[in-house]
Every structure is written in structure tokens, then in C-alpha cells.
């Protein structure tokens, strides 16, 4: 069941294959309790996350988007997450200009061993999205 038994919201997570996906796995294996609103898309690297993926998700029906990669300096491809950081920060600052609450989008770094950190990130982000409420109506989407 989702957070506080409310309607489950749609949160899309783009997780890098090498760190954050592993982190999520660690959290799972360690049986850390996590909210179920998150749907994970595994990507090779946070550098693969085109800001447009985030936009497409938000416009297409997601209530929140979480991007998570390796910590800076830890990128499997050495500098993918450095590029990601710039792009995603740009996006985060652009979103409110279009009237989209920037809190609905978060990017962060979680390593494969940080199961606990992953749990915290997901739980807190999901809680925040629930506080913000659904971005889209049951019938009508926010951008229609």
C-alpha cells in the first residue's frame, strides 16, 4: 500500500545502472520499507537522462520525477553525472517558469551500498509528492 493509504501517485525514477539501481536493490534485499509509488526506469548512467525525459514524464502523467545517479567523482563512465548535474539543475530552474513546481522533480546521488540512503530519499520524496498532491486530475491532466 502506498503512503498513508492515500491514492497511489505516479512517481517516475530514473536510476543509473551502476549506483542508484544497486542502491535500490540493496534497500530491497535489506527489506527496508519503501513506498510503492515509485516506478523505476533503469538507465546506463544519470548522464543518459535527457531533461526531456523528465518533462515528458511530468507532462505525460507523472506526479513527480526522481533522478538518481552515482555520487560526483564516482561515475562509472567517469564524468556522466557531471554533465547530468548541469542539465538537471538547468531543468530544475526552468520548471517553475512554466508553472511546474520544481519540488516535483528531484535529482540526487545514491551509491550501490547506500540502501539506507535510498530508502530515505524515496520515502522523503514520496512524502513530499503526497504533500504536494497529484499534479494531474483523475480525468484531466495538468497540461490539458
Amino acid at each position: 500500500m502506498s503512503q498513508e493509504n492515500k491514492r497511489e501517485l505516479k512517481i517516475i525514477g530514473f536510476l543509473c545502472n551502476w549506483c542508484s539501481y544497486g542502491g535500490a536493490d540493496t534497500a530491497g534485499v535489506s527489506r527496508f520499507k519503501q513506498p510503492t509509488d515509485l516506478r523505476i526506469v533503469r538507465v546506463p548512467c544519470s548522464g543518459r537522462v535527457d531533461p526531456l525525459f523528465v518533462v515528458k514524464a511530468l507532462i505525460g502523467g507523472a506526479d513527480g520525477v526522481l533522478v538518481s545517479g552515482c555520487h560526483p567523482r564516482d561515475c562509472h563512465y567517469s564524468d556522466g553525472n557531471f554533465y547530468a548535474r548541469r542539465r538537471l539543475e538547468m531543468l530544475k530552474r526552468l520548471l517553475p517558469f512554466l508553472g511546474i513546481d520544481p519540488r516535483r522533480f528531484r535529482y540526487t546521488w545514491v551509491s550501490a551500498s547506500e540502501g539506507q540512503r535510498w530508502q530515505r530519499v524515496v520515502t522523503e520524496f514520496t512524502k513530499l509528492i503526497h504533500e504536494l498532491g497529484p499534479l494531474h486530475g483523475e480525468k484531466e491532466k495538468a497540461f490539458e
Partner: protein
Amino acid sequence: MNWDHYMEKRRKPLSEKGLREKISQILKEVDVVISWKMGFDPIHATPHFIRDEKEIEESVFNVFCVHNLTTYLPFMKEKVGIVVKGCDSRTLVQFIQEGLITRENLKIIGIPCSGVVDVKKIMEEIGESPVLQAEILDNSSLKIRTLDGEKFFQIDSVLAQKCKTCRYPTPLIYDHLIGEPIKSQIGWDKAYEDVTEFDKKTLEEKLSFWKKEFEKCIRCYACRNACPLCVCQDRCIAESRDPHFVSQKLELPEKFMFHFIHAIHLAGRCVECGECERACPMGIPVKMMKKKINYEMKQLFDYETGINVDDKPPMYTFKVEEEKIKEHEL
């Protein structure tokens, strides 16, 4: 916003004769020179591709020469001569930064510009009545004769929005300069006042503003095609089926997505020439999104597009320690 005093000082007549002589000179070194000529009526100039000495006579430069002619360059294989205003020259700098043109194949005639008009605004003022004659009087006002009669405008009152806060009236890169350089007193903050003002609105206000604006979008892609930095053109992901970002529906999500694509692909690249907005037949302020990103680029990376050929666009590079990007805690 009071910028009148400063415009007055810098507005100076340009010798079209000098321009034509210079075109004639560089036409010997290149295959084609791109300039302006009068279009279908006196207030509409049109890009003029000069391949023959005889065509030089028609070329003009005045407040109606609104187009950023550099938009054609990345697709041209010939040696090109081009006439640029200050703002247009930033595109050239950006092109060179990104390796989109070869500087050696280009001859640049720079024109220090004291601003061009917003043709749409004039059209609105004259109720789209056919223009029979347009005259520039003592460099500060316009006399426009239409089928409905004569109308006078202070040029300043119909100046293009971008010119009101122009920070680079003199081309930043050129081989030949026609006329005296002009200096701008406009500070960076001033140029982005519209962005910061708009950003003060609430999220709801902003969303409903864009919904209203994008509602008008007819997806003609004029903004994209007029944009000099939109170099994917025929390969644009807005028209591709794989990846499939945008469908052929004419609904708001599609339009939001398209304009996000345009803006995000121009992050740290847009030189704010305003061609997107000028080309839009529906009057959508499409430039604003890009300006907002530029504003953030300056805040984050102290970067301004199209100023220095040796710069690297901020999205093409990184720093291990980013001074201005803080980890977002919840």
C-alpha cells in the same frame, strides 16, 4: 522602462552606399552574399541572396532589416559573405564555438545597429492596412502611408523588444565594419528584467499564462526553423516517431512538450536574437523560456552565449566542483 535617452544618442544614419560598396568588394571573394532587400511592402524587408553584381543595388539596411541572416549558414556549403547586426553576430560566435561553420569560408560585414522595429507591432497599429510608403524621418520617426492614410511613429515606440535592452549593438565579430561602433549602457540585470518580473508570479499564474499562449500554437515550426541554433531541422525529435516525444495531436501536452524541446535544446546556446518569437504568426512569446534559461546560465556558470569564440557552451562541459550548484536536500 526608460531607455529613450540612450537610444537617441546612439541612433545614427547608415550609408547604404558604403554597405553596397563593401558587398561588391567581398562578392569577389565569396560565392554569395546574404543581405536584405525590400520585401512585398515597404515595411517588410526580406533576406537577399546576392550572387550577381547586378543584385547589389537592391540591398538595403534600415530599421526593417529584422531578420537574423545567419540562420542559413550551417546548411550552406558555399563561401558566404554575410551582413550582421550586433545581435546577429552573437550567433556567429556561437556557431564557431560549436564548430557549426568554418570561419575561413565566411566574410562578415558588421553593422553597428541602433535597433530594428517590431513589424508586428506596426502592423497592429495600422490595422494590417496595406502599406504604400514608409519613410524614416530624421532618424527618430517613421512616416507610414497606408490605404487608410498616413501615420507617424516614434521609432522608439515600435522598437523590437530585444532592441530595447540590447547590450551588443556593435557586432562582436566581423571582417568589415560599416559605420562607427555603438556602445550600450544597458546592464545585464536590466536585460533580464522581463524574466525576473515574470518569475515573480505564482506557479498557477505562470502555468495558466503558458497554457493560454500555447493554446494558440499551430505547430507550424516557424520558431524552430527560424532559429539559427536549431540545427537539427529535418532531424528534429519533435517530428520523429522513434524516439516518439510528440504525437500529431493538437493538444496542449504536445505543445508544451514541443516548446520544452526547443528551449532545452537551446540551453546555454540561445543568443536571444528573437527570431523564434518574430517568426511566430500567433504571437506566442517563445523567446521567454530561452531567456529564462540564459538567465540561469549566467547565475550558475557566469556564462553568456555568443560573446567569446573560445568559450565552451556550459552544457557541453562541467566542473568537478560546481561552485553554484548545491545539492538539493528535501
